[in-house]
Structures are given as C-alpha cells and as structure tokens.
C-alpha cells in the first residue's frame, strides 16, 4: 500500500519554491565545490527515484513483505558517503536501500532483491531488509532494531585488531538509540578505543512514536557522554553539513581517538513501512518539511544560484537517473524467481 501523499515528492514536481533564499546576486556560500554539489544531487536523486519506484511497485504488488522507504533522508547517506575512505565499512538497519545505493551497490541487484528474484543481492532470500556486499564494505541491512550497534562495534574491533586505519560507520535510528545493546556497545567501544562512528539517523519517529514521547533526553548526540564519547548534532537535510560533520567524526576515529556519536536530524516523508496508518503526524507537518527543508531541492537551489547548472541541465540529470531506475525496475521484474532448490541452500557453509 503506498501512501496517498506520494503523488508529488519534491524533486519530482515543478520546482518547489525556494525557501532557503540565497543571496540575490552572490552565489550561496557552501563548503562544497560545484562538481561535488552536482555529484551529491545526482546521488540523492538516484535514491529518491529508486524509492519512488519501489513504492510504486509495492503498490502494484510487485514487491512484497516489509519495505521501508528512505525518501526525505537522502542527504544523510550521501553526505556520509562523501566523507568515507575507500575501505571504510558500513552497517545499518532495515531502512537500507539508500545506504546500499550510496555505497555503490548496483541498483538492479537491489531492486531484484526487493522483488525476491534470482539476481537480487541475496538471491531472493533476504528481501528489502537484508542485503550484504563485502566488495562494497557493506555489512548489511539488519532487521532487529539496535543490532547494528553491536555488530558494527565488532567490525571496528576487527579493523583495530588488524592494525589498519579503517573506520566502521554504524547507522541506526532514534528508536534504536533506546536499545540496551547500544549502551553496552558504547561502553565497550570507548573502553577499547574502537574506530566506530555511530550515526543516529533521528527522523523524529520510531514507527509512529515521536522521539519526544519515547526518549527522556532527546539530544541523542549526548548519548555517549557517560562513556566519554564525543558527540555532535548536524542538519541531516543539508548534505554538505552532513558531509562536514561526518568528516570530523571519521577523522576522529582515523586518528585512533576512539568512537564518535553523530546525530543527524532528518525526516522521513513516507510512513515507517508500507502499512503505516500515517495518523500520528499531520499532513501539514510533512508538507512543511518537504516544501521548506527538502535536501534535494536545497542542492538544486545551490546549483542554480551558483550558476553551476540550469533547470535544463538538472532535468537532464533527472532523466538519466530515471533511466537507471527504470532499468533496475525492469531487471527486478525480469529476473527469474529463485530456483526451488534455493530453499535448502546456504543454511550452513558445510553440513
């Protein structure tokens, strides 16, 4: 079931009115080069178009099971990815399509997994929440809230043990931040000075419960304070702000100063999953964020105001991205169903 509000996402509709007014004459100031901004625009747009297509295919019954869309949060993974080194590891929870695309996984393989087909990343046995790509240092989408924290801590331990300078970026949400194993992991990571950045994607709602109703201290970046872990909060709707904060956090780990907590304030436009009743927040609230803080519109405005690209050039990028997503969607529908024998394979390495 797709949300009724899906019809016009920012980025899909006519240019949304620019709310973050840049200077009228001078190009807006940002720490990113025009080339970088174009790259982020394209990367975020790929995630959005992919997710829109996934939502549409879900509504048509082509994707089943659970499906958690990332629309609205694109600046988070795009900004963090821009700050990562080539061999740094990533692990996340079940709202994971954006993380996979950002890490360079093939959209066709991701879509074919959503449709449960043979050419999916997990050969149709994992679905939306469970894909894994060692070649991209992507250690999975995990379905149990909070689990990525301890697993990511272990990946960081392995890196430290091997004596390399790689960092593990461990994502989870504001809901998972209240899980006990997160605190256990913080303590152990600080104790052992592990190179792990805990990125708390605070999208304001754990399923339908607002962070203010679930959480005594809503400044989640302070969650590491009791363990001596530094923390920072950043605007997750601003890709350059995320990138810069992530650079600082990753640099901290790279210098072997131990873990870091980065809280990223973001917002998901769609429901928690496809079966979300969408009654816990007002449509006005969602529309306000979409029209005033959309991460893709923000970069679009920067590009245009800075003279880097005009509407036509950005439309061309959108066309290219849409073509990629269409190709992925076709691939996901054309790939054969898994062989029935797959039911029994890969339970164990050796019997």
């Amino acid at each position, binding site marked *: 079931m797709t949300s009724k509000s899906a019809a016009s996402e920012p980025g899909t509709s006519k240019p949304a009115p620019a709310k973050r007014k840049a200077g009228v004459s001078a190009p807006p100031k940002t720490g990113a080069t025009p080339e970088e901004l174009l790259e982020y625009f394209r990367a975020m747009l790929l995630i959005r178009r992919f997710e829109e297509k996934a939502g549409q295919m879900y509504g048509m019954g082509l994707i089943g099971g659970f499906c958690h869309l990332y629309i609205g949060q694109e600046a988070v993974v795009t900004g963090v990815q821009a700050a990562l080194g080539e061999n740094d590891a990533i692990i996340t929870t079940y709202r994971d399509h954006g993380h996979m695309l950002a890490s360079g996984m093939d959209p066709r393989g991701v879509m074919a997994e959503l449709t449960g087909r043979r050419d999916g990343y997990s050969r149709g046995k994992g679905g939306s929440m469970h894909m894994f790509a060692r070649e991209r240092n992507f250690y999975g989408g995990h379905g149990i809230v909070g689990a990525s924290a*301890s697993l990511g801590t272990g990946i960081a331990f392995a890196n430290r043990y091997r004596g390399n300078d790689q960092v593990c970026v461990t994502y989870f949400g504001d809901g998972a931040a209240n899980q006990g194993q997160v605190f256990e992991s913080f303590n152990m990571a600080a104790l052992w000075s592990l190179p792990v950045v805990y990125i708390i994607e605070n999208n304001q709602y754990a399923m339908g419960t607002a962070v203010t109703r679930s959480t005594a201290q809503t400044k989640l970046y302070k969650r590491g304070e009791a363990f001596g872990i530094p923390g920072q909060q950043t605007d997750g709707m601003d890709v350059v702000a995320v990138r810069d904060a992530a650079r600082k956090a990753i640099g901290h780990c790279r210098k072997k100063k131990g873990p870091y907590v980065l809280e990223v304030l973001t917002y998901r436009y769609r429901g928690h999953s496809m079966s979300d009743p969408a009654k816990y927040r007002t449509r006005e609230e969602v529309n306000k964020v979409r029209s005033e803080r959309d991460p893709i519109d923000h970069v679009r405005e920067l590009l245009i105001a800075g003279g880097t690209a005009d509407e036509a050039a950005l439309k061309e990028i959108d066309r290219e991205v849409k073509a990629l997503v269409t190709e992925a969607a076709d691939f996901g529908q054309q790939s054969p169903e898994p062989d029935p024998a797959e039911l029994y394979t890969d339970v164990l390495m050796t019997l």
Partner: protein
Amino acid sequence: MSRKSIRQAINEALALEMRRDARVVVMGEDISGGMGAPGEQDAWGGPLGVTKGLMPEFGRERVLDTPISESAFIGAAAGAAATGLRPVAELMFVDFMGVCFDQIFNQAAKFRYMFGGKAVTPLVVRTMYGAGLSAASQHSQCLYPIFTHIPGLKVVLPSSAYEAKGLLIQAIRDDDPVIFFEHKAMYDEEEEVPDEAYTIPFGEANLTREGDDVTIVAFGRMVQFANQAADKLEKDGISCTVVDPRTTSPLDEDTIIEMAEETGRVVIVDEASPRCNMATDVSALITQNAFGALKAPIKMVTPPHTPVPFAADLERAYIPSPEKIEAAVREVAAA
C-alpha cells in the same frame, strides 16, 4: 599422549589454534581477569580456570576480558567474524543466553542464508551448561535444544576430554557459527588425549559401547552416565549400544536410526528439560523411521519439568543418574 582433564583439553585446543591462526581471538568475562588492576595478571583465567595461561602467551589484544555486556560482546564477535576474524566468545553460563540470544539466533545464525550465501560467520560461542554443582535455577540449565532448534547454528556437546579437544578444534576451523557446550561438572574428568591438534567431524556419532540388546542414545554428560549403566548391565547379561551423537546440529540421524533398528529397544537420555528436548526429537526420529523394528516402546530418561533445584538431595533427584538409566534399560529389555 597423556592424561588430561576436559579443562586442559579445551585450554590446549584454544592455545593450539591461536598459535596456528592469528585470526583466532578469545573474549569473555574474566577469561583472563585482573585486567588493568594492580593484582595478579591472568588472575582468574575464566570462572573455572579453563582459559588460564592464554593471556600471558597471546597478550591482551587476543585474549580480551569484556565488560559484563553479553549483547555487546557476542554481537561484536559476530560482527568481527563477518569480516573474517575467528572469534571464540565465552558465554559464561548458557543461562545468560537471555541477554544475548538476539545476537546469536537472529544475527549470526541468519547471515549466511538471508544474505544469499554471501556472508561467512566463523564464530564459536563456548558456554557452560548442566546441573550438579548446586548452582540453582539460573546457572544449571541445559538449553541446547533451543539452539538446536535454530537453523544456521551448529551445536556441539562433547562427552569427554578427547572429544572436547577434537570437537573444539573443529569448531574453531569451521566456517559456521558453532555453540560449544561444556558441562560444568565434567571439567576435572580425565582421559588419554593426544598432545597435537586433531579434529573430530561434526554430525558423525560415536559408539562408546556396542551391544545387542538395547540402544542408549545419550547427550553430553549423559554419555558417561550411560556408559556406567551399560557396564553394570553387561555383568547382568544385558548388552547395550551407547550412541553419542556429539553434535545435535547437525545430527547423525542415520547412525541413530541404524542402531535403533539393530536392537529394536531404545532408551534416550537427555539432561535437558523434557518438553521439546533432544529426547523427544530423537524419539520422533526413530518412530518415524524405524517403527517396524521396535520391539518395545521407547523410554526417555530426563529430569522432571521443573527448574533446577539448589539443595543437593533435590538436585540429585533431578539429574538423570546411571541408576535411572539402568532401570529404564531393564524395563525396555523386559518389555
């Protein structure tokens, strides 16, 4: 070759594998002890001294005392294993699975299947189980049937020092997540154990006694009790086969069925609580596959369906004993 206790056999298996493979690390609560404290280094060496001596040889980078945070360190061990390390994590008592079961059954056990064969998780969780030390209800359970229930895990129950060493080396070299059960009342039991490394394959049952009249299938410590009962019965003219499956997952179904068919009379001994335990599982296996060969109803020797009591007499009454096994075998033999 020399006489070694189960404690020594396990310690030796860990040391041999750590010398052989730098990817092997061990972690757990107090497995060294004395970390950072002014007192003796390696003060404890595990709650029952099983890991003593590893820290002085391999250092604190490879022998890690953890906080009392099973969720964090079992989860971290699973994450590290997914990158190619071969962690051996110690869950002090299997009763503590309640605070880290998610990391075992939802994480480590599932990676390979749900990631379409792309993930490898060479994790070993060593854990103590069983009654007999007056450790009461929260430190005496068996619980291996719960792990056996989960696809994606291997579950190992060594019954002697020789078995413990070979099965643990196999577990560490194995690429799947393995739960290795050590009975806390057996650590001092000795037998001849080779000094060098050797492996015992999983899923291949061992016949510790061979006889014609009754087949006893027993698990872990119960193999020893079954042997004692069999030796006594032999003198009275009842000869028994004792099957030690060694691993409950994978389970050597073929040998169990074959041995049940050979005698037609079966006793199953399991220290785990009687509902949905290995005894019920093996009983179902045999009735489904060898019903026609059975000459008597299968008999199960298990504890009652109660928590494990503290008082010594009550605990003795709880545990399946050689005497109870003997009585069951006589009943089945006479039926």
